[in-house]
């Protein structure tokens, strides 16, 4: 597998950086190379935040994402800001509730109710980032589901395992039910 550049964009507090870290962690335990980087301002909540992760079977040299193979935008701001750096033919996933102004261009667009699923089906909007991971992996088939689930479960707080398991599965189902 050549390098896959993944950018998860949202606002601070949505857990995009955590999601990128979990994905990188799971990838490393699946025997791949991964580098996770982040950009953040001084604020802890709000503001544009993005988590980035590069996954590859080869040595990863340049550590950041330049043009994304996979872009996730959980806010309109993130979508507007990062869409121009999506590669041609790449995967773009947006939250259908938050991103009303859908991007147009040469990419595969998935508008899915990620945050709504987390809030209503799982009951906690906090796990939107884990739903996102389920969505990303089901579309890209980057990792074996078991390995991703193992990665998620070892990184989330104790006592929230079942919740996060459900969230990950819900992300997968969101994609499956589209077909």
């Amino acid at each position, binding site marked *: 597998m050549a390098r896959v550049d993944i950018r998860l964009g949202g606002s601070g507090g949505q857990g995009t950086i955590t999601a990128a*870290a979990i994905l*990188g*962690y799971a990838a*490393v*335990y699946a025997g791949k*190379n*991964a*580098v*996770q*980087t*982040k950009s*953040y*301002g*001084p604020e802890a909540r709000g503001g544009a935040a993005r988590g980035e992760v590069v996954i590859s079977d080869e040595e*990863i*040299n*340049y*550590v*950041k994402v*330049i043009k994304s193979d996979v872009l996730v935008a959980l806010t309109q701001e993130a979508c507007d800001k990062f869409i121009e750096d999506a590669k041609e033919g790449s995967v773009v996933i947006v939250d259908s509730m938050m991103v009303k102004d859908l991007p147009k261009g040469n990419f595969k667009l998935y508008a899915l109710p990620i945050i709504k699923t987390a809030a209503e089906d799982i009951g906690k909007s906090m796990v939107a980032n884990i739903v996102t991971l389920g969505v990303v992996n089901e579309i890209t088939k980057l990792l074996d589901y078991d390995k991703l689930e193992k990665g998620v479960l070892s990184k989330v707080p104790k006592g929230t395992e079942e919740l996060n398991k459900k969230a990950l599965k819900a992300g997968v189902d969101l994609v499956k039910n589209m077909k």
Partner: protein
Amino acid sequence: MAKKLEFMMGNHAVAEGALYAGCKFYGGYPITPSTEVAERMAERLPKVGGRFIQMEDEIAAMASVIGASLAGVKSLTATSGPGLSLKQENIGYAMLCEIPVVIVDVMRGGPSTGMPTGPSQSDIMQAKWGTHGDHPVIAVTPASVQEQFNETVRAFNLAEKYRCPVYVLTDAIIGQMMEQLEIPEPGELEVIERPKPDCKPEEYLPFDMDKEFVPLAAFGSGYRYHVTGLHHNSDGFPTNDPVLHTKNTVRLIERINKNYDDIMKVEEFMTDDAEVLVFAIGVSARSAKHAVIEARNQGIKAGLLRPLTIWPFPDKHIDNILNKGNVKGIVVPEMNLGQMTLEVQRVAKGRCQVEGLFSLMLDPILPGEIVEKIRRFV
């Protein structure tokens, strides 16, 4: 057995490397983007019988690690540019008094408090000349999370072996990013322990100028001696003698220069037939390697010289490559306005062109920008 695999933040890997090297004391003052080193040490040190102290500022933090080291304990501090400025007076003291300590600098944009969360490589010259006077400097420059660990171990070894402060010069990207790390088994990496003096306490000369190496006796071990930031005799008491001042200053610097081969570490990538050389450290070297591969794919004979020791400067390694006569130009990408480029020009002595590629944009220099510079030499 499968190795212990982690997906770890670069700053945490520095802390783990320090613990692997036997560090038992951390004195610091928190500063972005280095704070995770302190956090990890605060959590881990008490569990291995060590001590962690958060001091009132960086000046005191530096003094505390010097004191701990004089008491016989391997000691670490971590900071960023503004904190490093404050530590400089005491770093000079440690250099003259030959006290081993490891100082991590996670570089951010300066000068002054500058750009707290913005990555940079602009302390290269501060590491070399931040403190006054002629002095010896060793600085290592990791470029991955694995190297954050391994090079911190090496920094401790160099500090103990050469009885001097050693910098781990890293940046806010390598320090803050997460990457895989294989934790080496105990014994897998060399760990140099501090030698103890074998003479009687009354015969001990802690700063014996006629010897290249003198073991540093721990305070409280029965060896009583004087330590001062004034130039001193072999016994540690102050002297005004210009001959001794010259002799000792030269001795300290020569001790590093003479052992270039032991202290120097570089990665050479496709340099054998290289016509264009890229010289880069840290996160810029990651971009540079990407660029060299891309240039090779375009049929350009590019190569990378990546120092893992930046001080002393890798003069000999640059010389060796230039002496082959193939190199037409050297590109020096760095996240500052040209601190290393001038050094490379000094070593090149006009044998080829040297072009800097500078950025203060707080993001890694793009491989494409480096390729463009490489192409200008073809």
